[in-house]
């Protein structure tokens, strides 16, 4: 089944949202989603890296030898991350401080590497660009969405502006446990909405589902599709 260009783009937004459905890149989502400002910066930085690396890897997909493809992907990704890092450090020093190590860690972000491996290395340039854009915006949507709730309840502010008066904050929301709670709620909400719309879930999520011709050997490779509950399987091929 060939997907249309629009489908490739919207895939990453909801149906195969990289964070809430594919469960990739959760680490930075939990850590950065404390403030809306930081989350927005992180989301846009990741989107840029993702689009850039997807395009370049797609261009080079016939040149890169299969056996050393991962190091090659990393070199491409690292190039874009260094670019972003320098620009952010030069022009947005506040954001640079807020993101800290997580900006540099985009190099090993599993969304970027995952899309390179699962999509860009097998598809054309335009498709890869759209996929990178969709996935990046999907990530941005989630991290900003979680950050809005966390900043509002935990710090009483929104993008730095005070909404709830001082003294009425629930501190745990900005701490790690709050991050996990909101992550879980966001995941439940998305799945609830998708179920409402009657979308079926394919357990072989994150690829075209053609496990017979796939060399990736992921943990959730499905030889015969028996899961008919329409639910998500707990196991995922990769961890963040």
């Amino acid at each position, binding site marked *: 089944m060939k997907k249309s260009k629009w489908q490739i783009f919207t895939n990453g937004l909801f149906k195969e949202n990289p964070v809430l459905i594919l469960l990739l890149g959760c680490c930075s989502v939990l850590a950065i989603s404390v403030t809306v400002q930081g989350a927005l910066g992180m989301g846009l930085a990741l989107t840029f890296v993702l689009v850039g690396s997807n395009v370049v890897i797609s261009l080079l997909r016939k040149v890169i030898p299969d056996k050393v493809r991962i190091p090659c992907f990393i070199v491409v990704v690292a190039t874009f991350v260094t670019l972003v890092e320098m620009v952010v450090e030069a022009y947005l020093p506040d954001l640079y401080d807020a993101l800290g190590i997580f900006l540099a860690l985009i190099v090993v972000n599993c969304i970027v590497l995952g899309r390179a491996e699962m999509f860009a290395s097998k598809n054309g340039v335009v498709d890869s660009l759209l996929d990178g854009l969709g996935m990046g915006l999907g990530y941005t949507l989630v991290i900003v969405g979680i950050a809005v709730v966390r900043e509002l309840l935990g710090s009483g502010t929104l993008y730095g502006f005070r909404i709830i008066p001082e003294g*009425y904050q*629930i*501190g*745990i929301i900005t701490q790690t*446990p709050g991050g996990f*709670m909101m992550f879980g709620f966001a995941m439940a909400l998305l799945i609830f909405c998708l179920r409402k719309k009657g979308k079926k879930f394919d357990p072989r999520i994150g690829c075209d589902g053609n496990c017979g011709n796939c060399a990736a050997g992921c943990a959730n490779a499905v030889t015969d599709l028996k899961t008919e509950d329409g639910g998500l399987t707990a196991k995922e091929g990769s961890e963040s």
Partner: protein
Amino acid sequence: MSKMNLSVSPHIRSARTTQSIMLDVIIALTPALIASVVLYGFRALLLTQISCGFCVLLEFLYEKLLKRPVTVSDLSAVVTGLLVAFNVPVSMPVWMLLVGDLAAIILAKQLFGGLGCNFMNPALVGRIVMMFSFTTALTTYTGSAGLVDAATSATPLADPASYGFMELLFGLHGGVIGETCAAALLLGGIYLCVRGVIKPIIPLVYIGTTVLLTWAFGGVAPLRSALAGGLLLGAIYMATDYVTSPITDKGKVIFGVFLGLITALIRVFGNYSEGVTFAIILGNILVPYINDLTETRPIGANPPAKKEAGK
């Protein structure tokens, strides 16, 4: 027609219901509630009522919203509300208490499927959420209208040696609403044991281990520190929660020793002066494994087959 009834097990039924058990727990908690009103004034009662009411309301609304059978009448939400309120100081702002109730009923209990499915004690989850969110409010003990004056502010756990046995036994010191009057808590505990609601194994082992290890680790006044802080409240009413404690007697002993170890470690070496909350929550998480390890074998049954590798 034959008069023989054929049925599958269970064949022996008890007249006890969740409701009657929870009612017993509420009765057992009443002396501590009365003591808290005497010690800290009328606001203690008010907070408790609000907490209970809000817990019941939350459970009702959640179950209505999800079109589940409404289980408010089993009184478990009332007990949770009581215990959450017992875990806050009398000066606690009401909205903070409500956040604790919300965490207890929705987060810890209903999201996991309601009574019997929660893997952690709901009241303690409420306490933990409040502890991380409102640390200052939860550890500032100022009495208002009762016997305890506003000057006594620190929990005796910080320095148990400076309090006499009688002071600790009757709770004439700062602390959260329900934990201070040791005598009332013990009275309720004895009532629960006599009524057969709980077995005394977990509280005895837990408190015993804590005292012993506090002494062994070189803590101050081990016997008196057993009466101070939330140890009695936790050991008698929270660690013995059916859902989140082991089934067998052997398991209960292991559970009690583990809780005692963690409590003593945190009290003697940790940054927090109180370790009961963390100990019970950690213990709750281990309960399924303890149950697995201490499964009772029917008489004459073969030893359990080793589980196949890779399963």
